[in-house]
């Protein structure tokens, strides 16, 4: 390759107009030829680029380390058990959803029944009597409950007396 071509290529290079192929030509030229003095500095630049590529490398021990780490992860992240767990979880989720669905409706139907029950009484007086009876029943049950509580009060009164006597 004649010097004039190299000078021309270099000018293109400085102006950032060279193609990768032309840059490769320059690299090759400077690595293989004794260059004239005016190109010594430039030659050193290109040789520096190549030296960088040549010296700054990772060795085989690095590969081994990475591959070892990767194979340990490979077994850890095997997809099959992962998929199995996902399948079981999905089943559980579906079961839970089904249970929730079959458990939720009853309260709704009960409410509907209450509405229907109101409708069964056409005579207001009858309805009134029934309600009164129901309320009386509740009231009597409540009274019974309070009686028990009174007994309990006696017990706590006894406790208080014992405490105060101490």
């Amino acid at each position, binding site marked *: 390759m004649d010097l004039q071509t190299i000078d021309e290529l270099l000018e293109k290079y400085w102006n950032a107009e060279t193609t990768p192929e032309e840059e*490769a030509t320059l690299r090759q030229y400077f690595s293989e030829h004794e260059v004239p003095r005016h190109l010594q500095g430039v030659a050193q630049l290109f040789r520096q680029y190549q030296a960088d590529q040549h010296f700054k490398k990772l060795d085989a021990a*690095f590969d081994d380390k990475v591959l070892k*780490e*990767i194979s340990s992860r490979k077994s850890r992240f095997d997809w099959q058990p992962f998929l199995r767990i996902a399948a079981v979880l999905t089943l559980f989720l579906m079961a839970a959803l089904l249970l929730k669905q079959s458990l939720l409706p009853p309260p709704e139907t009960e409410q509907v029944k209450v509405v229907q029950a109101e409708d069964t009484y056409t005579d207001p007086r009858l309805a009134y009597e029934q309600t009164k009876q129901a309320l009386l029943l509740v009231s009597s049950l409540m009274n019974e409950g309070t009686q028990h509580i009174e007994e309990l009060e006696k017990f706590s009164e006894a406790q208080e007396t014992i405490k105060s006597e101490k």
Partner: protein
Amino acid sequence: MVLEEFKNSVLPVKNKLYRFALRFLGNEDEAKDVVQEVLIKAWDRREEIQGYHSIEAWCMRLTKNLSLNKLKSGHYSRTMMLEEEDRYDSAQDSPYTSTETHDVLTNIQRLLGRLPEKQRLVLELRDIEGYAYQEISDILGIDLNQVKVNLFRARQTLKKQLISIDAYGLTNNR
């Protein structure tokens, strides 16, 4: 992606990733850690990244992000860069390599180091790693025009500096 594919298509990118991380971090061990993290992430997300246009560009972007995160966490400084340069210089061929060449190499490293970061990154991705403009744009997340402008400026600066080195006779007297 199976392990064999990973070995053939992703793992060989390691040196580019390493140099890229080194450009940010300036420390070999830290850069190595970043590359390892990137490769393992690439493996963990292999199903997802397999469809990507360029897995290499994805790895480079991740390398950049993880390196910047490391820098931000700031438990070490970039002064390590200088130590690394010294070690690198001493790794040259033989003690018989002329001190002249040695000096110029150091000078060139200094010239590159003095470029604004974006210019330096674009230049190195192009001239050392051989990436196309579009790939550089993807990796650095800057638009194509920015790539071209930064490359042009970096090379112009180098041209001026190298000519002045020559004029001061640091390589050889004309």
